[in-house]
């Protein structure tokens, strides 16, 4: 099969790889019909997440048709499925409480040790997202082996096009969980940093969850315009002092909750961010936590901080004092995707939301390298790239 593979920092190449086959009884094999590039993939592409190896197949946002099933799969051949990026077993203590991205069993034991050293405990498995999360082959490929296929995939109806369903694999539930983690009360003012796909779905979710106002912060005019079209009030960090602006816009109170939908590769020419960038570049395990620092400073006293943005290392100058003294709450994590997909699919079926507005570019899988480059370097136009194998 053909698959988008990692060949080193900044190099993606579509190569011929062996077709996957059933390995475990609960497996299924799917033929991918649509797959997307995520902001998280850019962290791999830029080499800021460790544990990615040459020839690793990338991609964790994908859907397709069932091609083969193992003995204990409950899927049937030909069924259409969306596959959540966080792989889970469905039976461990974490899964029993629907914390699927914390599943104890989905990361192969041989791959658990690096994450355990780095984070205290091993992580769950994920598709196409480094060996810290299992080294599973990803979905930017013609075929994918799906473990735990009796619980993991979401079977979707035949009459809804891929474009409206694909984002159930990650970014739509991620935006939804980011808003839930902000514990929005009706009428609240929410500030969202980042108007990439995750930020935009966070804005949409915040309004669904009864936010009164959403203030959207980014530096890319095209993305700010999309945020505005969803009803948010755009603020450009290149032109405005964010802290000041947020105070002014909230009558001096500050946002009730702040959401960091940017993560470890924040842009900006502030002193803290430049220092972080140097340390990140020389491989000191440094995250660029500029946005998180700013969000914590901007949050009102007693407010909530939600962090869907991905971090993988350590952060200097973390405003712990501001967190503690203002009595903030912080919630974060990789998304427990499957926990939210039934509800979100229902909203798509009832036309309450149509996530396909995000798609700016469609490419054949063979053009994956071009997709990665442009999605990173031309963010004004390249909002979301969907590829067909």
């Amino acid at each position: 099969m053909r698959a988008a593979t990692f060949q080193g920092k900044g190099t993606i190449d579509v190569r011929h790889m062996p077709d996957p086959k059933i390995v475990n009884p609960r497996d299924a094999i799917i033929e991918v019909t649509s797959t997307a590039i995520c902001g998280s993939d850019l962290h791999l592409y830029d080499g800021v997440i460790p544990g990615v190896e040459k020839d690793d197949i990338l991609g964790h946002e994908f859907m397709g048709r069932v091609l083969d099933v193992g003995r204990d799969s409950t899927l049937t051949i030909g069924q259409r499925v969306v596959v959540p990026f966080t792989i889970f077993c469905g039976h461990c203590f974490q899964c029993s409480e629907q914390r699927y991205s914390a599943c104890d069993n989905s990361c192969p034991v041989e791959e658990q040790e690096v994450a355990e050293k780095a984070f205290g405990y091993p992580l769950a498995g994920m598709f196409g997202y480094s060996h810290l999360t299992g080294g599973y082959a990803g979905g930017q490929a013609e075929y994918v082996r799906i473990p735990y296929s009796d619980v993991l995939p979401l079977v979707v109806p035949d009459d809804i096009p891929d474009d409206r369903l694909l984002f159930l694999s990650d970014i739509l539930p991620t935006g939804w969980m980011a808003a839930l983690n902000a514990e929005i009360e009706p009428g609240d003012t929410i500030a969202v940093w980042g108007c990439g796909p995750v930020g935009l779905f966070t804005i949409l979710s915040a309004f669904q969850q009864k936010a009164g106002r959403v203030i959207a912060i980014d530096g890319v005019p095209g993305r700010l315009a999309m945020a505005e079209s969803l009803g948010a009030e755009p603020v450009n960090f290149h032109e405005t002092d964010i802290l000041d602006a947020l105070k002014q816009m909230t009558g001096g109170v500050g946002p009730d909750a702040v959401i960091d939908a940017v993560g470890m590769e924040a842009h900006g020419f502030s002193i803290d961010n430049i220092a972080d960038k140097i340390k990140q570049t020389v491989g000191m395990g440094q995250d660029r936590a500029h946005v998180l620092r700013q969000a914590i400073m901007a949050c009102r006293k007693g407010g909530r901080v939600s962090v869907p943005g991905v971090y993988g290392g350590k952060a200097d100058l973390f405003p712990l004092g501001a967190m503690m003294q203002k009595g903030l709450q912080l919630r974060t994590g990789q998304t427990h995707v499957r926990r939210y997909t039934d509800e979100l699919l229902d909203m798509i079926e009832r036309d309450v939301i149509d996530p396909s507005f995000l798609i700016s570019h469609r490419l054949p899988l063979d053009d994956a390298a071009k997709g990665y480059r442009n999605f990173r370097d031309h963010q004004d136009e390249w909002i979301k790239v969907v590829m067909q194998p």
Partner: protein
Amino acid sequence: MNLANWARYGLAATLATAAGGVLFYKRQPHANRDAAPARSARHVRRFGDYRVTGATVSIRATADQIIDCWQNDATLWPQLEYLPFPEGNQDDLLLPPAELRAMASVPMRIRIVTRREGELIAWRSEGEGQADMHGRLRLSDNGSKGIAVEVIMAVRPPHFASALKTEAMMAEALELGLLRDLRRMKMLIEAGEIATAKMRPDAA
């Protein structure tokens, strides 16, 4: 009881009584107060001539299911690295998996010496000219997390620790290997299969 006696009278007996380690610590009037005395191998790297290591996981199953998997699930055994497992139909004999066997420079015959239903299985190696090893698998209730399964193993150099590995490296490999083995068992019991990222059954 001093350490030399303790080793002579049989480590297995001491390991079998979970209280053994606790008593040993409680005897020391000014020892660090610690709610996990001698439970984590990290606290007791060495007992006399022995290196002691161990690992713990929690499994959502009954104690019987856990013992049953270890005792009867032939899909588990070939995946084990260091945790001894029952040998065929010989009730009280255990087999060392390949990695454990490779770690010892002489053969091992392992026999179960204590069995407390749903709670504890302790074993030791026996016979002249055999590698000296003691161990136990202990089960205890861990509430909504399931059953805590702990394995502790004590091995005695020089028959353990080959020329290629220092004692410390051996202890580390053993500890890591036991943890992997317990995690494989947990996967098999909870998820019905052992996780793998292989794309094909024949892949390396």
